[in-house]
């Protein structure tokens, strides 16, 4: 009996440790922007927050008056505001920055006399979408208090929801184009349906740049100045030549071929699906050819993003020169808190890289049938258009907000910031990037983004394409075989497509 007990105990601890390990890993899995930042500095920023509140209120009352007509058609007497999302990020933004929100407990809060209910389903294994799908399909018959009011989406599958009637046009809420003039165009492209109607808004933009290791740059190129390094990575041909130089010096230019994928796939000129037929853009095929060359030359690996092998380059021993990513990657996901990592020593620097791209981001959509239209509208307006609130988000949470004038003022140093524990105001700089102010680069990258070539099939196509091509890169299949595998996998996911 004793032995049985011991064995049960042993195995339980074993399972627990293994699961603990997984838990840590799966946190990294979410491809959206990172969780909340640690710095919450309510005290010193209290005046700023107050002024937010007043400006925000004024703005929204003005709009109400102007566009009250169209908003009147939507119900506005709900007692419960249901928000569907997959992590704590939006909740912490609302808690910290939305003036009327009071937190009650982990999954509820109040705005005035309306109860806010957070329905958080993690992203893993498509669970969030499955849950959202099931609930949205029942939306019409649901009791008023159970109806979804707001749900969040990511770029990869935004169109799946945006292109249906389950998502409400923001214009129907009474939000005008003028309200949104400061937002970056690409954030609107992603949530514009096939008829050109805008159906969601985001408070953040996630333009990506190239983060390279200053140390490696000094060793191989004799300088770590971003402007000079940019010459080595200014377009794909130069980038691939540089890869050879780095390979000779014992470094991989990027950790994995999947690092460069987004940069190519955000710069396509056609959609994944044209008239029900799968279509592979030339730029994607260029990624295949360039990547095959890099892998064959031994200049980079084929690891999946977020795998342990991929993350090795966060440390000097990983021998990786650069990663492609937006601000949140370098700030939160590259082990900057761990002693010995490159980020911890301020060893990264940012440069624009070959092409602009974006990665991550969360969009706020209003569900058709919402009974809290005015609150939904107010949340959207305050969180995604209010200058003061958005500046506050940058300062406290290091987000790159979806507000061009705010970001440009911070980039040029016109807006000074003061963080917790600091005594004087200064220009926005990044510790992890060795004191560089990268915002100008992000701003430049985000301006050039054109995302009109999204389709509702992007998530499945991008995933399957990377999976299938891995076989080609590793020499287990010819290019044709790998492409066949890709077509096959996509048709399994989307039976209505042909190739």
């Amino acid at each position: 009996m004793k032995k049985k007990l011991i064995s049960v105990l042993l195995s339980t601890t074993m399972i627990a440790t293994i699961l603990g390990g997984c838990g840590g890993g799966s946190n990294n899995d979410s491809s959206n922007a990172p969780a909340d930042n640690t710095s919450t500095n309510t005290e010193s920023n209290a005046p700023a927050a107050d002024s937010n509140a007043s400006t925000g209120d004024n703005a929204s009352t003005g709009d109400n008056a102007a566009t009250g007509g169209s908003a009147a058609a939507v119900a506005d007497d709900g007692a419960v505001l249901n928000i569907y999302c997959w992590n704590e990020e939006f909740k912490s933004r609302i808690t910290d920055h939305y003036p009327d929100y009071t937190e009650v407990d982990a999954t509820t809060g109040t705005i005035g006399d309306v109860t806010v209910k957070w329905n958080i389903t993690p992203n893993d294994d498509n669970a969030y979408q499955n849950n959202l799908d099931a609930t949205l399909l029942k939306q019409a018959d649901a009791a008023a208090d159970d109806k979804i009011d707001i749900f969040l989406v990511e770029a990869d599958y935004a169109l799946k929801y945006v292109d249906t009637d389950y998502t409400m046009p923001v214009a129907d809420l009474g939000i005008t184009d003028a309200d949104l003039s400061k937002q970056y165009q690409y954030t609107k492209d992603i949530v514009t349906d096939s008829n050109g109607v805008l159906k969601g808004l985001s408070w953040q933009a996630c333009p990506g740049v190239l983060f390279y290791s200053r140390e490696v740059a000094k060793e191989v190129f004799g300088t770590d100045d971003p402007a000079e390094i940019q010459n080595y990575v200014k377009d794909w041909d130069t980038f691939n030549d540089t890869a050879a130089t780095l390979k000779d010096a014992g470094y991989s230019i990027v950790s994995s071929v999947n690092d460069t994928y987004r940069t190519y796939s955000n710069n396509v000129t056609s959609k994944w699906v044209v008239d029900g037929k799968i279509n592979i853009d030339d730029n994607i095929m260029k990624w295949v050819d360039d990547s095959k060359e890099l892998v064959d030359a031994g200049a980079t690996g084929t690891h999946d993003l977020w795998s342990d092998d991929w993350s090795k380059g966060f440390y000097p021993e990983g021998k990786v020169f650069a990663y492609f990513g937006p601000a949140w990657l370098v700030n939160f996901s590259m082990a900057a808190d761990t002693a010995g990592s490159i980020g911890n020593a301020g060893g990264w620097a940012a440069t624009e890289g070959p092409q602009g791209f974006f990665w991550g981001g969360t969009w706020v959509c209003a569900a058709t049938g919402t009974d809290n239209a005015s609150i939904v509208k107010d949340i959207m307006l305050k969180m995604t258009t209010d200058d003061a609130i958005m500046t506050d988000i940058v300062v406290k949470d290091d987000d790159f907000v979806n507000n061009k004038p705010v970001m440009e003022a911070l980039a040029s140093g016109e807006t000074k910031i003061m963080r917790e524990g600091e005594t004087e105001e200064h220009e926005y700089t990044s510790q992890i990037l060795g004191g560089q102010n990268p915002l100008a680069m992000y701003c430049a990258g985000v301006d050039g983004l054109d995302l009109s070539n999204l389709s509702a099939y992007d998530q499945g196509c991008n995933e399957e394409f990377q999976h299938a091509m891995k076989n080609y890169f590793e020499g287990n299949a010819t290019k044709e075989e790998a492409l066949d595998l890709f077509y096959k996998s996509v048709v399994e996911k989307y039976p209505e497509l042909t190739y």
Partner: protein
Amino acid sequence: MKKSKAVRYNKWGYIFLLPFIIVYVVFQFIPMVTTIYNSFFENYMSGLTQIGPKFVGLGNYQKLFSDGDIWIYAKNTMVLWIMCFIPQIILSLLLGAWFSDTLLKLKGQRFFKTVIYMPNLIMASAFSMLFFTLFSDGGPINSMLMQIGFISEPYKFLSNTGSARGLIAFMNCLMWFGNTTILLMAGMMGIDTSLFEAAEVDGATSTQVFFKITLPLLRPILVYVMITSLIGGLQLFDVPQILTNGTGDPMRSTMTLIMFLNKHLFSKNYGMAGAVSVLLFIITAVLSLIVFKVTGNDKRKG
């Protein structure tokens, strides 16, 4: 009115059977019938739009066979099962014989029986995550092999057909050999000890005893083990799914039938998934029948 003298207990028999019948009908029979029914329809979700259900007759089956890939996955599944079953049955027979041998009187039997059963207690998913980490390109196994100078470049275990399949078979073997050992041991202990004693008196070697006495008398249990293992093997899913992240890489050489079935559930494609399920049902039935016949367990022909 005439009362029958004999008290009839028949109805109690039926009443005691009822719970099983209800559970079987609700959770096994109805799903099976609806699966077959569904396999004749085109019925899936495109995003948030429901397509079908539209009756297409045998259309789903036609598609399945014209693609032909289903046989590749069936072959993968069988290869993985055989790779796992042969070492497993040898190991289990050996251990079972040792544990049940009264002459050997192994010490610490209970401890070892617990230890060999333990891998089965771990969730398959946790187990595969562990192996995934151990055998990743930069994982501990690779660094160890490189340190002792066995290889100079990391060996990509999961990118080579042989090693990927080998790993899956090894994990399954490790997880199930304890279970098989205990089943076989139960069978062996059920054999009349006087037979062993008689053999000993006649001067039989332990090899002779094993092949001439233990094995033949163990046949019913062996057949049972084989059929359950075969059915389990055909339903192989969790280990390869997690080890290869659902891709069945390299080039789908580790994609099993159930993994293929799972691929159709992304779009809630009940039609195709139903067709695959029905096919899987038929394959399982046929294979089980073959095993049953070949091992001569069919009593009907005397």
